[in-house]
């Protein structure tokens, strides 16, 4: 296997992390919605925590994307 092929395969493998982060972000918003419908009165006060969870889950996906870009263009 030459270097170019290995790079593209590596970037594709790194992109799996983005999909995993998608599961995480969906989980954050899904769980929030589930409990917000059960108790709408408490939903607004938890919006800050919702976005903290979203930011933490999203960051890992973005890091996976950055790794893919580094493998493709910078190595």
């Amino acid at each position, binding site marked *: 296997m030459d270097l170019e092929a290995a790079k593209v395969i590596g970037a594709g493998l790194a992109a799996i992390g983005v999909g995993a982060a998608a599961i995480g972000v969906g989980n954050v918003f899904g769980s929030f919605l589930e409990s917000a419908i059960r108790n709408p009165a408490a939903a607004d006060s938890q919006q*800050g925590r919702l*976005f*903290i969870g*979203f*930011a933490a889950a*999203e*960051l890992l996906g*973005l*890091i996976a*994307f*950055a790794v893919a*870009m580094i493998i493709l263009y910078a190595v």
Partner: protein
Amino acid sequence: MHQFQIAPLAGDLGSPFVFTNSALWMLVVLALIWVFMVGGMKRQLVPGRWQVAVEGVTGFITSMLTTNVGPEGRRYVPWVFTVFMFILFANLLGMMPFALAGAHPFTVTSQFTVTGVMAIISFAIVLIVGFWKHGFHFFSLFIPHGTPKILLPLIFLIELLSFMVRPFSLALRLFVAMIAGHILVEVFASFVVSGINAGGVAGPAISLLSFVFIMGVMALELLVCAIQAYVFALLTSLYINDAVNLH
């Protein structure tokens, strides 16, 4: 990619005195924020629409800081408000789709240096406020209450690491989110072009599909622009809370 490239408009790229398209768009962002703020700061007793918009943004940031930091949080409104407005306007200006005569919008926040400087200033505020208010007691931030004695060194190391990585994650999140959105739009735009070039029945159909998809992605990106500005401001206020109140 062309849209992320920094091009000198006046001066030489190698020299320290160079006016780039990045600097130009920062000035555009500054001018727009200035117009927005001056238009709304008329202090009328019965506010007009513009004044309500400006008061809405300032009230939003103020309430975010008071809920997260407490009454002392009002002192940090200037920095958080500045960073929120700058990121929001820079993101939205970067989303503008048109390009005229080789000149195209430049997303200021898609450069790691720009977001990095903002994150470092936020981190510096946390450090300065923390050591100013609490002295060396500030290090108790790294030891959660009720930690067993045996685990103390390990927990301290982990907490210190997660503290030190904060400015990096703050800057990385913003700039990668902007770059990823623009690259996504660009990839689907290239599908439109190559679909038309392919001809036949399937080619234009794929082009049309990609074009509709681009519109959806653009709407999503507008949401991401606002969310990223909000997340940056929210995390900054949380970090300031750590420095002001420890635990």
